[in-house]
Structures are given as C-alpha cells and as structure tokens.
C-alpha cells in the first residue's frame, strides 16, 4: 500500500470511530432524565417563575459591574506597581517586587476569604461596601499584581531611543514616561490586558463564596441559589444557564483578542 493511501485510511478510521462513539452514547443515554436534570422546563421558562430574570438582571449585571470596577482600579494599581518596579529608587523596586510575587503566588480565593472574613474577625473591621466590597478589594489587589507584570513588559518593549529622544528635547523623566513611553506601552499590551479582563470575569465567580445581599449577588451566586429554590430547584439547570451567560460574554472577548493580535502582527510586519 502506498504511504498516502495508508494515511488516508487511518484518518477515515479515526473519523468513523468518533462517529460510532457519539451514536452509541446518544442511543444509550436517558434523554428524558438529562433534559429534566440539566434543562428543567420550569427553570428556563420565560415567565415570572423562570430563572432568567434574576440570572440576568441581578447576576450578569453585577458580574459585569464587579469586573469593570476590579479591572479599572486594578489597572491603576498596576501602573503604580510597574512604575515602582522600574524606578531608580531601590526601596520602591523592592516593595513592588515583593507585592507582585506575594499576590501572584497565592490563590485569589484565599485573599478573598481573608479580606471578607479574616480581617473582620481579627480586627473587627469590615472594608467599605460590606462583604462584596471586601471581596472586590481582594480581586483588585490580585489583578493589580498580574497586570503590573504585563505593563512592565510593555514599558520595557518601548525602545530606549524613545526615552533618549524625549530627554534630549529637555522633557523631564515623568513627562517622558507619561507622554512618550506609556502610550506606546499600552498599545503593545492591549491584547494581553483584554485577556486579563476575561480572566477577571471568571474570577468574579469566586466572590460567590462570601455572603452577599440578594441584590449584590453575582452570576455564580444567583445560579447557586437556584439549585435549591425556584422552579428548577433540585436540578442543575441554573448552572447551565449561568454557563451560557458567561460564554456569551467571554467568547466575543477572546475573539477580539485574537483579532487584535492578528492586526498587530500585520502592523509590525
């Protein structure tokens, strides 16, 4: 047999095996039970007893809101950390490095629990915004650490000649950083920062482990409450619904990153 013929037969063999497995699984599955447990008609009805209302108007709205707050404040923190990391002053460099290594080395979940329950227990102090506010502060602290490393890479990717040209015109170090270096650095890091944004959307789900008032719950928290209440109680329907909502938000964003990267590759060629 010729090599190419053998290869083609192999490919057909794999395709056939995959189809057979899918068909067998579809035939032996109990579709009634699956439908009832994962897509309960009561929960997905559009009436007032369905889950969509709270999932979208409370859960999704809060998820987007918390992500936006954590991203913007995290980015501000990241700029400060990155500038400190690149500062000529050794103390600032040291503090920034220690901060970044500390928070990148910890699970975000433990920081959230610490802010939400550890601090109030130890010091009797609750951060502004209640428990959700405490969780958000934790997310900002962690996101800032990650994004500062991205920003630092972007700043260092700006050629040294740019700084030299600005300084030779008499511009101060600060003006050079804010008018020449940072604008160019931000362009480089827009795709990785969009990625961080997607990660942050998913990380807001961690906030579901600290108690929140009904109106402050984010998407995962709302979905979890529907596991034991409402028309689809006792089934996993609400989790599937929440998953769909997450995907509707995240997939366009990951596509956006891919598009940005393609465009950037074209521009630098």
């Amino acid at each position, binding site marked *: 047999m010729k090599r190419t013929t053998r290869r083609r037969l192999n490919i057909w063999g794999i395709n056939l095996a995959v189809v057979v497995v899918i068909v067998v699984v579809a035939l032996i599955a109990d579709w009634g039970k699956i439908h009832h447990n994962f897509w309960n008609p009561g929960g997905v009805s559009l009436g007032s007893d369905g889950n969509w209302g709270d999932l979208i108007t409370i859960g999704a709205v809060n998820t987007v809101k918390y992500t936006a707050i954590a991203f913007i404040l995290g980015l501000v923190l990241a700029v400060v950390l990155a500038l400190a990391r690149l500062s000529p002053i050794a103390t600032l460099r040291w503090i920034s490095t220690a901060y970044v290594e500390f928070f990148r080395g910890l699970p975000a979940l433990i920081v959230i629990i610490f802010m939400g329950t550890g601090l109030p227990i130890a010091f009797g102090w609750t951060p502004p915004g209640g428990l959700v506010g405490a969780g958000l502060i934790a997310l900002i602290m962690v996101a800032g650490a990650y994004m500062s490393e991205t920003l630092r890479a972007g700043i260092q990717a700006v*050629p040294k*000649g*740019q700084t*030299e*040209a*600005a*300084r*030779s*015109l*008499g*511009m*101060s170090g600060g*003006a050079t950083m804010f*008018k*020449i270096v940072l*604008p*160019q650095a931000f*362009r480089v890091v827009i795709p990785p920062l969009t990625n961080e944004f997607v990660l942050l959307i998913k990380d807001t789900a961690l906030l579901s482990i600290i108690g929140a008032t009904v109106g402050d719950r984010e998407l995962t928290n709302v979905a979890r409450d529907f596991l034991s209440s409402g028309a689809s109680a006792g089934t996993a329907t609400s989790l599937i619904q929440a998953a769909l909502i997450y995907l509707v938000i995240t997939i366009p964003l990951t596509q956006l990153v891919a598009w940005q990267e393609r465009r950037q590759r074209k521009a630098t060629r």
Partner: protein
Amino acid sequence: MSTQPTIQPATAHGEPIPAIAVRGLHKSYGHHEVLSGIDFFVDTGQVVCVIGPSGSGKSTLLRCVNRLEEPTSGEILIEGVDICDPETDLDATRSRIGMVFQQFNLFPHLSVLKNLTLAQRNVRKRSKDEAVEIARQNLAKVGLSEKESAYPAHLSGGQQQRVAIARALSMKPDMMLFDEPTSALDPELVGDVLAVMKELAQEGMTMMVVTHEMGFAREVGDKLVFMDGGVVVEEGRPVDVLSNPQHQRTQAFLSKVL
C-alpha cells in the same frame, strides 16, 4: 525660520566662551575604557565633524555632551555651564541642545506635527498656536510641509530624519548634535538630509557632527577631529586632515574609507 542673532558669551577677559568645552573626559563601562582623556571644543557658529573607526568612542563623546551617557570623570561645559554639576538644570540645558539620532527616534504614536510641537508645549511652555507656527516653519525648511499630518511609519528613512531635524530645530536650540545622521539611510536618501544640514551650517548653527560622510566634512566642516581608541588622534582644518594626515593611524583609517 529667522536666523537667530548669534550671541557670543564673553568671559571677564573678553575671550569668547566655547559653545562646547570638554576637558579630560573619561568614560568606562566596567573595566572597559571607551574614552581615555578627551579634550574637545566647539566654538559658537562652528561646524565640527568627528570621524573615526567604529568603537573609537566618537558617538559616546557626543552622547556625553548632553549627558545621555554619564561621564566617569572630566568636565563638560555647555556655553560655560558645567552640566555635570548637580546644581545645573539638566533638562533646561538639554532643551538648548538639539540632538539628531542615527535611528531618527521619532515618536511613532504621534503625527509629524505633534512630534514637533510636544516638547515645545511641554518644555518651552509655548501656546498651541505658537508651537504649531514654529513647527510649520521648520517643516517647510526641511521640505516636508505636506507631511504634517502623516505618521512616522508612513515616511521614508530620509523623510523621518528630516522630520527629526525639524523637531530638534523647533526648540530653537543654540547648537545641534548629529550622531551618524545618515548611517541608517539608503544611499539615495542621504543627499536630502545632508542638504538640510548644509543649509543649517550656512545659517551659522553651531554643530557637532559624528559622521562617515567625508565629503560633507570637507565641504561644510570648520574643523575635523579624528578619534581612535578613545582618544583624539588628530584635529585640524578638514582639508588638511583629509589630504595631508599627520598621524599614522589617521592615514590608515583614511586609506580605507576614501
């Protein structure tokens, strides 16, 4: 651009102060000494060209003049002001020294006009209208008026370098430093840049030019300095140094490049 009246700063004895005075300059990177005791002077209105093999320290010398490189020891006076003195306002001094780089170093995120106005506004605190007017005068001078809204990436190397010269001129500097301004250009684009530099020289601009363009040095330069191994080997009138080099190292270098 109107030609600025050249003011000759004078000492108490009436002696003119050089625009650039370098004395006993040493520069080392670790154990590697790049400049080994340089004395170097540029008088106001003079065009001084610096030549030498690569690694001779000529670019380092030029970059020390506006302290883009930190001297290890020695003295650098710009119009009589010691730029290594911590009391000296380095940014203010730099704003009076135009610098043109081998790699142009235009700001890629800004239009040509913005490249020319940014430092005028930020450092000179000129009004927007004034900065734009000065920028347009200088763009016209380098023959690129029609490019003011273009971005650097859309210009040829020669055009970028002329914009870079216009950017430096827009600060109305007292002197200009050129660090191998034509070395990164395609041969057919070199002429336009040299023509702009020649015009500047004829207007009386004080210039220090590190270059490999011997024709330019001979035609435009008032003084030619040959460096090798971190020292000034020979200096004099360009025509003398080029056609009748005294030192063996100068002869060896010129026989290779001419």
